[in-house]
């Protein structure tokens, strides 16, 4: 095909030419920006194919089940490159996030062989794995014939590799030696502070570094900045309320959701004194400085408020603050980022993470071909493509984090983002105990928080009741 163009692309990939230079030279050759993207994809995909039979599944057709998400957009923008490299056919179904996981559960519980690969989060694999719906991917990762020697599994951030591996035993440590790799990390988010620089300047405060400071900063913001509430966190009756800022701060004090006994039984740990103290601060923070409609707040409302200038900061996914600094938002360009360790005695933040991952359906008829695709989709090359040109952020691979083009792009428009990530990444992992009742218990936890914030039940009493209920449910499921 186009030799001249390919040379330019190679030069770009080798770092000899900037993206802008490349695009300029391409347009001189009559290649549009979109076509140039595809060529870059093809070029980087060539690197993937070196020393490995990329065509081994030529002619096989795969079907993906995807969530409507920027990661998906990045995948679709580069999908032609994969098809050209592998000779495979790839089709996909995209569902909105609001209903996405229900669709996955419906498809898998009916044992449908329609989808080969699908997007998921690590928490969901705690259901899918024991239910027998997904495959342990170690079998493929370890297989030299099926896995590209350049795949470089070790390059995946260690905390994420561990967080997506579980031995299936309730309470079993994530990433243990006997763990099964239920999914491959794809893109992830950790929880820290994103804040509005103008509002912080107006109040004359800087980013707080622990819970006590946070409450002080909130107090200052609420008096000095008119018509704005200080801090946004999620509050809907769902596990999603527990896992972001809340659990990140909670874990920073060394508190746990459950404790695993010597005999392997699980018991509730939410009613310790430390936990009660943290809950009291958290409830006070919401009551005095949170959104009025807190108990209906999901990720969308938390983000929207920051982007539209209704809130001064959020303690939520870093990537949410990242999106709110992008197009179409009133506060675009005003958002900054900071690491946050709730416990003044802690050395570093301990953000709980959400990991968008790829899983292989156990009902797939084409598992080898599916793995072929998964390697490419979670490989360094596609990661670089997505991180440099699309919003495929946060990357899960060290090689991408080390990429200067990516770092330069982020540093330019997202002040403090790289810093908050670099400081937090070592402690970033899943802090929940892996067990099949995850959704039952976290949903009830969220409901209890709602009752506390509404002053329907005092914090201490609410947590004792929660612990009792959790213990009953664990016992009932033979886990307690």
């Amino acid at each position, binding site marked *: 095909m186009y030799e001249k163009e390919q040379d330019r692309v190679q030069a770009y990939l080798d770092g000899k030419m900037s993206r802008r230079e490349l695009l300029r030279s391409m347009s001189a050759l009559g290649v549009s920006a979109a076509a140039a993207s595809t060529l870059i994809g093809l070029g980087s995909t060539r690197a993937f194919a070196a020393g490995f039979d990329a065509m081994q599944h030529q002619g096989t057709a795969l079907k993906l089940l995807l969530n409507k998400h920027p990661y998906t957009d990045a995948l679709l923008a580069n999908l032609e490159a994969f098809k050209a490299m592998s000779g495979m056919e790839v089709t996909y179904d995209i569902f909105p996030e609001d209903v996405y996981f229900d669709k996955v*559960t419906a498809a898998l*519980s009916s044992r449908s062989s329609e989808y080969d690969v699908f997007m998921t989060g690590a928490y969901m694999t705690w259901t899918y794995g*024991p239910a027998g719906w997904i495959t342990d991917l170690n079998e493929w990762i370890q297989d030299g014939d099926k896995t590209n020697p350049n795949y470089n599994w070790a390059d995946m951030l260690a905390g994420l590799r561990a967080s997506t591996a579980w031995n299936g035993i309730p309470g079993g440590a994530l990433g243990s030696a006997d763990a099964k790799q239920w999914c491959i990390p794809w893109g992830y988010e950790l929880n820290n502070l994103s804040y509005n620089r103008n509002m912080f300047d107006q109040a004359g405060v800087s980013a707080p570094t622990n819970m006590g400071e946070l409450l002080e900063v909130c107090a200052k913001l609420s008096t000095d900045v008119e018509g704005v509430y200080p801090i946004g966190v999620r509050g809907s009756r769902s*596990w999603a309320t527990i896992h972001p800022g809340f659990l990140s701060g909670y874990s920073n004090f060394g508190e746990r959701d459950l404790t695993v006994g010597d005999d392997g039984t699980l018991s509730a740990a939410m009613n310790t004194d430390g936990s009660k103290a943290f809950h009291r601060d958290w409830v006070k923070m919401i009551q005095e400085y949170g959104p*009025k409609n807190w*108990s*209906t707040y999901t990720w969308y409302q938390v983000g929207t408020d920051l982007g539209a200038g209704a809130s001064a900061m959020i303690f939520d996914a870093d990537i949410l603050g990242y999106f709110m600094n992008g197009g179409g938002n009133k506060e675009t360009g005003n958002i900054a980022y900071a690491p946050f360790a709730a416990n003044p005695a802690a050395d570093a933040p301990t953000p709980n993470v959400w990991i968008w991952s790829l899983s292989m359906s156990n009902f797939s008829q084409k598992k080898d071909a599916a793995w072929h695709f998964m390697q490419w989709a979670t490989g360094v090359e596609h990661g670089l493509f997505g991180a440099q040109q699309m919003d495929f952020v946060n990357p899960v691979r060290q090689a991408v984090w080390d990429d200067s083009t990516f770092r330069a792009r982020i540093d330019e428009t997202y002040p403090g983002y790289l810093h908050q990530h670099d400081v937090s990444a070592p402690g970033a992992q899943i802090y929940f105990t892996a067990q099949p*009742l995850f959704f039952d218990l976290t949903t009830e936890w969220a409901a209890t928080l*709602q009752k506390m914030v509404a002053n329907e039940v005092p914090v201490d009493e609410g947590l004792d009741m929660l612990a009792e209920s959790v213990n009953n449910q664990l016992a009932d*499921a033979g886990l307690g």
Partner: protein
Amino acid sequence: MRDAFRRRALPYLLSLPALLVCIGILIPFGTAIYYSLQRYRLNLPHLRKMNWGENYLKFLTDSEFWNTLQVSLAYTGLTVGLELLLGLGIALLLQRSTRFNNFVSILLLLPLMTAPALAALMWKLMTNPNFGILSYAASLVGFEDMKWASDPSTALLTVLLVDIWVYTPFMMILLLAGLRSLPRQPFEAAALDGVPRTFVFFRITLPMLTPYIITASLFRLLDSIQQFDIIYAMTQGGPGDTLMVFQVEAYLQFFQATNIGKSAALLLVLWVITFILSNLFVKQWLRLREQAQGAG
């Protein structure tokens, strides 16, 4: 002879196709009953076994179940009752068949045409404390701290408001149909005799309208006791357990906890309640029909 046979067979021939198409649904229904008699959680497959009525027995001592029952019944009673009153009132206002009234009645169907799931999303925005026009309006008239769906004391009210907005038109259109199809003679006779209007309404209009009221209320009842879209989109059953109705609880049990046994048992309890209530309505409806035919 052939004629007599055909006359006897005809009603069956006419109603059978409808029945046959729906009967296929009975098979999954049977499967669901079977599931409800099991300890069956998709992510704890090794524990799966028949436990007969245990899922149901547990409900008796489960305070969450009783809360769900109470919320569901209260929600149904309030929505059906309020929508009936409001729908009847509007139907009376629009009773005369004028161009204007007919146009208004079509306009009023617009909320019903908005999918409840999307309508709830819009109401959530309208009641947002920062950007919501309703919150803003409320603050102008002194309700600055109105928390709408996120406070236990106003959550039910807010969701009721949305339900009333969406479904009153349904009530209205069926009752309007009934009102306009009433025979004229009794009213003309009453007018000639100078009977007071309230008397006419309670003694003539209302009794004659009752079959329509029953049909409309029955369909509202069937939908309302199974309410899901609006509540799930607005509060997911919260805050706390304030709005936890059967379908939301069963949905969470199925899709999140993958607790098939409990989910099926909850839904079957809901089915039994609906069955009993509908039976009462239909019996009443049939009785009224007998009366009407006896009188006519």
